[in-house]
């Protein structure tokens, strides 16, 4: 769970927390014969780990992580004998964001190390250093880690270069991979039909809106916009009106118009996905047979034009041209500027926990708006049918094993066992429910009864996580292409979009053409044939 979400969701009354704790204590003191038998031992473990340290009992510590790791060792024990990996040393490279990620992994894996006899050495990286470190390791042939925490967008760089070890079948069984939400199932995590990833996280953009802008008599209209056409119409209609909460000028949708190291491109994708992600075609950024960019087809141009229309209508707050995604979410939306936003999970939780947020009581969630029409790139024509395509931006973190261990079966098994332990079904429930840096990513994570039993606020969890669940399992989800250098494409697109939004290109089409030309250069430099092959592989074609 993201830290802020936890902070909000765990805002319980002391009485309720004590009630839960008392109940747990009462069960524990019952004689064995009188204790209610759990339907399954696994359910018992899930309840136990959710009680560590207990919702509302403060942030978990290393001792808690170790306790959870110990309780979740059962799956490992079915595949690995005690002391089986004695003498094995593994190197794990991951992040240290917010003192989470690797910090948790250390605790979770400590009991695993004690049981198996293996030893893990750690490479901790800041998020900003991650891409450069990974790319340099690949380019210079100095992959000095056996296990890596990695986002799916980098699968093209690693799996595509033959740097990853194929996941053994027993791992898929151990982690109960069938439980993953729809979009995280293959082809995500696979390359050329081989599976490489133990998923430990899920990501998607969801729609946040201000409830006080919408409803009978509200300034934004009776209904919350369901399409991008409606989003733009409302945004234009709000020009000159007053925000009901702050008394300052009202604004509609908040597009980030400034780049963000490549990540800003996800936000024009949100608009474009509804226009260009056709249900019959998994590709939406490139033509899979030629790698010809689709970013300048009429659907993408419409998305860019929508933004330009709002600039021309003066619908954005002042200085929006310098607002990156972080600004739109944290300096604008949460601070009461604007009424609609697309973002990852943080916004919903921050809305009610951040000191700088004023929209906590008036925020609502939904999936990415759709469109009244969709562009069919194969047919080369618009279709006047409703289309929606949630953007699975970044796809989430996974644990991968590198080919460094492929030649040593004992070491390979140890590496995969460690990865499987971190991606285990029960352990993942805990990472979903407590601060870990990870979002829910399994069907079983959306069993709200478990959350409620653990002491969470059910209404919030249902509302907030519901928008994630709907996005995850959407049949037309827009999945990011996992090809090498994907962030290079995004980065150069941000530069060209910045020029387009600043009026340096004559039209949306010219802006899109400039992006397409830059993308063609990148494809040629990286290698068109290999990119075509890898793009197809990433799409499962």
């Amino acid at each position, binding site marked *: 769970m993201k830290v802020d979400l936890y902070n909000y969701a765990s805002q319980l009354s002391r009485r309720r927390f004590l009630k839960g704790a008392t109940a747990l204590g009462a069960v524990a003191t019952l004689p064995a014969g009188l204790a209610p038998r759990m339907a399954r031992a696994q359910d018992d473990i899930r309840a136990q780990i959710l009680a560590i340290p207990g919702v509302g009992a403060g942030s978990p510590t290393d001792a808690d992580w170790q306790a959870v790791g110990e309780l979740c060792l059962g799956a490992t024990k079915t595949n690995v004998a005690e002391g089986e990996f004695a003498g094995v040393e593994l190197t794990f490279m991951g992040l240290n964001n917010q003192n989470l990620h690797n910090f948790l992994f250390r605790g979770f894996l400590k009991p695993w190390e004690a049981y198996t006899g293996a030893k893990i050495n750690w490479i901790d990286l800041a998020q900003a250093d991650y891409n450069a470190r990974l790319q340099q390791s690949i380019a210079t042939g100095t992959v000095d880690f056996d296990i890596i925490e990695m986002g799916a967008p980098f699968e093209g760089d690693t799996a595509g270069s033959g740097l990853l070890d194929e996941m053994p079948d027993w791992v898929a069984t151990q982690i109960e991979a069938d439980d993953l939400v729809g979009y995280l199932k293959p082809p995500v995590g696979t390359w050329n039909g081989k599976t490489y990833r133990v998923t430990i996280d899920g990501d998607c953009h969801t729609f946040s809106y201000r409830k006080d802008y919408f409803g009978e008599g509200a300034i934004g209209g009776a209904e919350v916009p369901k399409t991008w056409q409606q989003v733009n119409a409302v945004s234009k209609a709000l020009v000159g009106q007053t925000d009901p909460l702050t008394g300052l000028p009202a604004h509609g949708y908040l597009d980030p118009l400034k780049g963000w190291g490549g990540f800003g491109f996800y936000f024009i994708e949100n608009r474009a996905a509804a226009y260009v992600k056709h249900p019959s075609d998994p590709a939406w950024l490139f033509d899979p047979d030629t790698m010809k960019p689709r970013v300048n087809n009429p659907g993408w141009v419409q998305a860019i034009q929508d933004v330009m229309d709002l600039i021309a209508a003066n619908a954005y707050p002042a200085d929006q041209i310098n607002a990156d995604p972080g600004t739109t979410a944290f300096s604008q939306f949460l601070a009461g500027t604007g009424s609609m936003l697309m973002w990852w999970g943080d916004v919903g939780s921050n809305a009610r926990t951040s000191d700088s947020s004023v929209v906590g009581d008036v925020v609502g969630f939904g999936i990415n708006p759709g469109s009244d029409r969709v562009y069919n790139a194969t047919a080369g024509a618009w279709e006047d049918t409703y289309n929606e395509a949630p953007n699975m931006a970044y796809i989430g973190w996974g644990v991968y094993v590198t080919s460094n261990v492929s030649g040593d079966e004992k070491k390979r098994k140890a590496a995969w066992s460690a990865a499987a332990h971190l991606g285990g079904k029960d352990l993942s429930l805990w990472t979903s429910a407590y601060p870990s840096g990870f979002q829910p990513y399994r069907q079983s994570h959306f069993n709200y009864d478990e959350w409620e039993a653990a002491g969470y606020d059910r209404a919030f969890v249902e509302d907030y996580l519901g928008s994630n669940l709907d996005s995850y399992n959407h049949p037309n989800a827009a999945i990011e292409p996992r090809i090498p250098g994907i962030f290079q494409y995004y980065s150069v697109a941000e530069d060209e979009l*910045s020029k387009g939004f600043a009026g340096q290109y004559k039209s949306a089409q010219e802006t899109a053409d400039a992006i397409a030309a830059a993308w063609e250069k990148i494809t040629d430099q990286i290698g068109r044939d290999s990119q075509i092959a890898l793009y197809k592989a990433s799409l499962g074609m």
Partner: protein
Amino acid sequence: MSGEQLHIVTNDSITEARRRLGLGLIWGSAAVLAGTAAMQVIQARGSADFGFSNWRPTLYAYVFWAICLCVAQVVVRGEQGKRTLFVLPAALFVISLTVFPLLFGLIIAFSSWNLSSPTGREFNGFDNIRQMWGDPFYWNALGNMIWYVLAIIAEYAIAFGLALLLSGQIRARKFFRVAFLLPLMLSPVAVSWMIGKSMLEARFGPLSRLARAIGIDNPSFFESAWMAKTTIMVLDAWTFIPFMMIMLLAGLQAIPKELQEASRVDGATGWKAFWEITFPLMLPVSITAVMIRIIFKLKLADVVINTTAGGPGGATDTVTSFIFREYRDRSNVGYGTMLAMVYLVLIVIFMTVLMKWAAKYARPQT
């Protein structure tokens, strides 16, 4: 006794055998270095496998050659060689850390090397130059640099004014000297966040509130191209004017008081005394301060990257911030290196011309 031998305390008699030993050391170690390097190149090209796992053997061979070269100086030339030893290790060290990286940099600059490319680095001749020639982002950044450098004229005038003020007999002079220096002590990254992103924030920033209070609707410091460029110039100037000021202040304090007193006795007014006496005497210091400032300015990146990321539409982009994006965000090592090399050459040419031009003004006017 020749003049050269005046400082020699021992009279060396170098035998032919000793001389041959020294030369053998040099050429033998050079052969080891060349052989090792050749083997590594052959292995890298895949023609043969000598069991090298990295390039360290060549590095060790280079260190071995360098040591042998130093030792051989004494063996071959005796006491004269010991003199050389005072300089040679340092020279070799400098060459190792500057010339070699420059050569490697040139090799990379003439390569297509995208870190995501499965084929790795490939020599591509002048393709990067051609790409640069048609790259509007690079030329736009170079054009911006001209404006940023021209802003130094205003910075210089302000710095000179402040230096004159602080060299005069004013109250709390020491306090103001420290106060005016404070911006220089701040990291440009901190300046860009504290001022660029916070104080100038369009909605909540105190300066925006002030602008609204005096009747400016929707104040924005980065929205239009020229406003954004000007704001970046002001942020950078605020940080570095104290640097020029302190140099000019030191220059002012070094001017002999007699000259100024004599000019007053001769009836020079304040402005005339400044223009005829102080300013000419300050020219050498001024030119030095401006040239160092230009070098700083040509490296401008941090404020831009943090505040505008080069926007809006490239209006505030600098060459360095553009190269940063090519490297960091696009892993385009070959092209990025070429851009940096070309920029280096442009800077060297520009500074050389500037120094030649300034040389005649830098001499004290008599």
